[in-house]
């Protein structure tokens, strides 16, 4: 119903202040008035173990990158609660379409350390056949769409995937992760609009971590974060403390109900902070202060949950020590195994471009094989997979 006024009346969103849903304080105590979500002991422990494993994997793999064993790495550090908490509130068969920093969700779903390593080292067991840079994981079995580097492209895809789920009537939904930086891309706006118009069971999960590589939020948007954009698209929205896994879990659980039961999209904005660098190629000391980082270290999401679990006696100091040691050892042992494996075969260069290899591509490949036979020492990987006799190293990361 259109309401007419007869004096100019410009509106702004300034009076619209979106609150942040938070349950657990940094000491691991519930805020007054907060209601503890229904979370069973084993489920809470599974969530914590995934967060801890993600933290340890990230520490070890960044170190491995610094040692030159790995070409590239991206850490989830500081955002484990946002990512794992969201995954934990879904049905394990719901689709997750992530950006690139959400390995915690995959960890929660049960991706093994071996599976992580095979992708990171691009060996013959990598599901992606050594084609993408490290951290571009994917698992059909775990309903986790393979990561693509171009920013925000997964967001409208999530709308489409979820529309298919709605038509299939299988009761599943899709959750897509993205950063506040990606929310600037056109893809974000297209995705929200289509989801809203077509009543799609999709959860748009924005990790507002404060930075897009070097660019702080203040240079990315002028409004109160990403959440208010939901109103423009007539969509449910909630802002949540992204370092509080209980709040993230509960918000996502309720968002899923809206998505699945009403076929309506929901936007969740998790307020957090990227404690680590953007990637192993980045150096945040060039654009932000240590003091700023320290403020956020005090809000560490992993410690916060640990404190809560300890207070409930669902976790113990001994378990913590044992678990950390076990995980560190497993990561190191698995890494050694993964980096010793051979590269994907030469044929993987031309397979999967199309469902069937085209005649032109086959000709190009035959020519390449003839060339490698002529110069086997110049192409050790190719020569090895053609069984040509050359001394190949075990290094699996490029020719260096």
């Amino acid at each position, binding site marked *: 119903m259109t309401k007419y006024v007869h004096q100019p009346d410009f509106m702004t969103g300034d009076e619209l202040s979106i609150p942040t849903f938070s349950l657990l304080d940094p000491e691991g105590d519930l805020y007054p008035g907060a209601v503890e979500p229904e979370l069973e002991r084993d489920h809470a422990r599974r969530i914590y173990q995934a967060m801890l494993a993600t933290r340890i994997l990230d520490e070890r793999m960044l170190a491995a990158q610094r040692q030159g064993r790995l*070409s*590239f790495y991206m850490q989830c550090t500081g955002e484990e609660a946002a990512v794992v908490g969201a995954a934990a509130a879904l049905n394990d068969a719901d689709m997750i379409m992530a950006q690139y920093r959400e390995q915690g969700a995959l960890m929660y779903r049960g991706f093994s350390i071996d599976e992580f390593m095979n992708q990171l080292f*691009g060996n013959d067991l990598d599901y992606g056949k*050594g*084609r*993408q*840079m490290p951290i*571009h994981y994917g698992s059909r079995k775990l309903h986790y769409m393979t990561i*693509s*580097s*171009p*920013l*925000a492209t997964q967001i409208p895809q999530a709308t489409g995937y979820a529309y298919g789920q709605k038509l299939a009537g299988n009761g599943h939904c899709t959750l897509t992760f993205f950063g506040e*930086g*990606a929310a*600037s*891309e*056109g*893809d974000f706006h297209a995705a929200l609009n289509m989801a809203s118009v077509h009543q799609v069971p999709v959860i748009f999960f924005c990790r507002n971590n404060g930075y*897009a*590589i*070097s*660019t702080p939020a203040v*240079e*990315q*948007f002028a409004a109160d974060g990403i959440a208010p954009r939901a109103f423009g698209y007539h969509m449910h929205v909630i802002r949540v403390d992204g370092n509080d896994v209980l709040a993230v879990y509960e918000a996502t659980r309720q968002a899923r109900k809206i998505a699945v039961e009403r076929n309506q999209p929901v936007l969740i904005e998790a307020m957090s902070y990227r404690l680590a660098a953007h990637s192993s*190629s*980045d150096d945040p000391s*060039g*654009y932000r202060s240590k003091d700023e980082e320290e403020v956020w270290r005090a809000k560490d999401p992993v410690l916060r949950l640990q404190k809560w679990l300890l207070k409930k006696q669902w976790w113990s100091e001994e378990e913590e020590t044992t678990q950390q040691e076990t995980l560190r050892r497993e990561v190191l042992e698995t890494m050694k195994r993964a980096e010793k494996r051979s*590269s*994907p075969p*030469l044929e*993987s*260069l*031309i397979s999967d*471009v199309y469902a069937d290899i*085209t005649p*032109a*591509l086959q000709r*190009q*490949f035959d020519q*390449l094989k003839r*060339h*490698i036979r*002529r*110069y086997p020492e*110049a*192409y050790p*990987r*190719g020569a090895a997979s053609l069984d040509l006799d050359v001394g190949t190293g075990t290094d*699996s*990361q*490029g*020719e260096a």
Partner: protein
Amino acid sequence: MATMNMLQAINNALDIAMAEDEKVICFGEDVGIFGGVFRATSHLQEKFGKSRCFNTPLVEQGIIGFANGLAAQGSVPVAEIQFADYIFPAFDQIVNETAKFRYRSGDLFNVGGLTIRTPYGGGIAGGLYHSQSPEAYFTHTPGLKVVVPRNPYQAKGLLLAAIRDPDPVLFLEPKRLYRAAVGDVPEEDYQLPIGEAEVIKEGTDITVVGWGAQMEVIGKAVELAEEQGIACDVIDLRTLLPWDADTVVESVLKTGRLVVSHEAPLTGGFAGEIAATIQERCFLYLESPIARVTGLDTPFPLVLEKEYMPDHLKIFEAIRESVNF
């Protein structure tokens, strides 16, 4: 003369252009205080202020749309797309707007001041999304100019020419060479011509044509060929649109043979355009088929990058086969 790598040469060119003309404005993702992820825009914000060198939100279509408007207004935008792989969200703005602005308005408006800088190419273990060479998509677009430098000296002179060119220029920077290519670069202002190829080496047996990072690879192949007594005429196109066919024709009329090399896939690649033009203009002089040494018709791989890349051995073999045809 100073010794500079390619990034320093590009930074120096931007510095000169901004100091000379206050209408020159640099922007893109992370180009501000951080100086760009490769540091091509280091210190420009410090020197020229936030209104002339700034970070944009992550929105490539927005960056180029904004740049189009800014250029139409009379400013001289130098927009950075962080990787050429990420230029495609801006494809509509570049192909339909940048390229056609002057034409569709009957020259009432134009965006000639616009330069789009973007790092392209492989050899950095970047896989599918940090390695592409998208030049062919843009060379199919009348109204654009497409320029690719091969070393620091060329980068500075061509970038200054691009910024001052009356037409919009897509400036593709070979990122593998950003720090690897080091050479003498005059500290003062100079320009190199857009639209002109450069004959880098003269020889009588075969013409070898390339651009950007391939020129270094071609150099190595030509050395191998010369050890076998084959004398190569080596041409760096430098500008792909409009490309300097006359220089290549003149060379092929002399040598009767041509090898073209690029990193992008074979089918629909720019080597096809060159081959078609040369067979049309040099048909009776050709002594062997025109050879193309390129990437395969696949997305850019990661682990098998070495096998995929058109390297010096593949180019050497093409030269050898052409000469022995």
